[in-house]
């Protein structure tokens, strides 16, 4: 939110590719994004995994807005098939789903952030710009999911395994504040650190989520069912 002003000044709009199996939602999102003229340009859309893979290869967009829930494997499948060949393309998961398993799967597959479909147009534009600039975008809900995934709960794997990637206390704090609905600026003020540091923490949490070999993260869905 804080860097909308400086990015708006930039010359080239962010080229966005929409992937969602609901044509109605694509139309709506496109209309909302196109309102941000000069900031965002919607260059294409796809309604299925196959179309998405072909479209991303053809258009080479900056940011892909990726639906989590789709037939044929959903967003995670698109990432699996595109990620290697197009490492520069940034993915932002956009979902209506409350199923944390799906969302975590997309994040683990390499999406740079996750926002819910109830997000306002302004926030969505902001999120797209932010992921384009290399930042990770965490909605409060995603922060909750990730906290849950890394949680030290009874029954989960022992936490003091040196091989496991863990969240530092600071990262945990940042994540908690995110989950409480704080903006980066507010988190920075709360923790007496700079906004830049908050961004670094968030990115590192994202990286850990993606790289984590904590098996309860990969088997998280199963764990949850056993609680």
């Amino acid at each position: 939110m804080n860097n909308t002003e400086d990015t708006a000044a930039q010359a080239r709009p962010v080229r966005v590719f929409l992937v969602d199996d609901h044509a109605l939602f694509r139309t709506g999102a496109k209309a909302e994004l196109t309102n941000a003229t000069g900031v965002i340009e919607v260059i294409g859309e796809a309604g299925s995994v196959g179309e998405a893979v072909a479209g991303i290869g053809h258009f080479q967009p900056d940011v892909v807005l990726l639906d989590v829930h789709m037939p044929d494997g959903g967003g995670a499948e698109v990432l699996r098939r595109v990620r290697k060949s197009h490492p520069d393309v940034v993915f932002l998961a956009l979902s209506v789903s409350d199923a944390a398993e799906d969302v975590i799967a997309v994040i683990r597959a390499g999406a740079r952030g996750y926002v819910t479909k109830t997000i306002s147009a302004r926030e969505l534009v902001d999120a797209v710009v932010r992921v384009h600039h290399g930042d990770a975008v965490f909605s409060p809900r995603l922060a909750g999911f990730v906290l849950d995934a890394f949680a030290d709960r009874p029954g989960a794997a022992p936490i003091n395994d040196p091989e496991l990637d863990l969240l530092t206390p600071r990262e945990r704090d940042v994540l908690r504040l995110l989950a409480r609905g704080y903006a980066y600026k507010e988190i920075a003020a709360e923790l007496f650190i700079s906004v830049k540091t908050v961004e670094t923490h968030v990115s590192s949490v994202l990286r850990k989520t993606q790289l984590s070999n904590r098996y309860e993260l990969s088997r998280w869905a199963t764990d949850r069912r056993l609680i």
Partner: protein
Amino acid sequence: MAVQADREGRQPVPDDAPVDDAHRITQRVAPARRDPRVGGAGGENTPRPTLRRRRSSRVVAGVAGGLADHLKVDVLWVRVVITLLAGVDGLGVVLYAALWALVPQRPVDVPEAVNSRQRTQALGLVVLGFGLVVATTSFGSGWSGRLFFPASVGLIGAFLVWREADETQRRRWAQGARTGVAEVFIGNGGRGAVVRSLTGAGLVLTGIIVLLANSLSLARLQFALLSVIVTLVGAAVLTLPWWLRLVRDLDEERRVRIRTEERAEIAAHLHDSVLQTLALIQKQAENDKEVRRLARSQERQLRTWLYGATGYGGSSRASAEPDAEASPSAGEPASARTLAALISEVCGEVEDTFAIKVQQVVVGDCEVDDRVLAAVWAAREAMVNAAKHAEVGEVSVFVEVEPAQVELFVRDRGKGFDTSTVPGDRHGLADSIHGRMERHGGTVRLRTAPGEGTEVALRLPRTADKR
């Protein structure tokens, strides 16, 4: 098997029930309507019941009773005739067996009177018939004499098996349960049914073997047995693909039916929820607030249904839960038993009541006891305050359950207030939040300033002394 298939084929009740229904009416008022299946044999103007074996008040299989109902004569006469025919080389027995095999039983829902006098008469007639058969076969020198012993053993066996199949069918009707091929004979009757069926089968085999042994020499008997076995095996092998397909078709049919039912359930749910709400929204299109409230509450409902613990997608999650009883106390939403469920219920309530959005994030979960419940009510009061005074459209709720404590945060980005200017007569914050939390050993932290929004942080140690 063929007989069973036939009965099965006619089983779908839409075919049977209306017919029987119609007959119950026709017998009383005799209108013009007639069953085409019965028409030809009977008189032109007297409709008569379809030939169906009786279900209750039967002695062996209800054949005589059914026949009597069909022919509209007293059941005693039918039984006497059958008994007399039994004396003629066992013709009556054969007739009875044939009718038993071919005539389906009445559906369960047709009421029948039980007549104990008739029953005694019938039992007497069965004994009489048996005596007649014995007499004719032992005095007569025809082929039936030699046939008698093995034939009666075989018949008793067949009687056992058939009766078991009948029972099974009745049970199935009663429960409306779906069964596979094997269950046609065994059914849900348990071990007793298996034993009865096996005994019956054994008796039939014994009867056949004794019959053959009586009439043939040993060498020929061996040959005959061998050829029978070879034939049976050959037939089994030849028809194996057919059997497999039959089983597969049955499976497929069952799967299709389950899928169809599931689809119907989903359609019904969507109709009751989403479609109704969309219709309401269209009607209220001008009323901004109401539209949002409807959409939100619908979204929440659908989410719970799709992803919730007891919902469509998460039934396994719900069943895996240990059934620890949450202590219920007065006035709580009784359905929720875990903190996460309770929080989403409370948030939903506030959303609906005040037409604002409450975004909740819950990390971890625990059982709800009195203290947790108090914390949730305190959080609810904080939400209500935010909804009433903050003048915003959205409130964030974050709940984290840790091994040592439960933390709840209620936050808005509204106008905030100066804590020192709150008039002394306002009880919401003091009683409902501070008071509640302190009584249960928790703490409250309030952060607010004019223009800064408000955050209420509630902390509740989990391990503190519970009394």
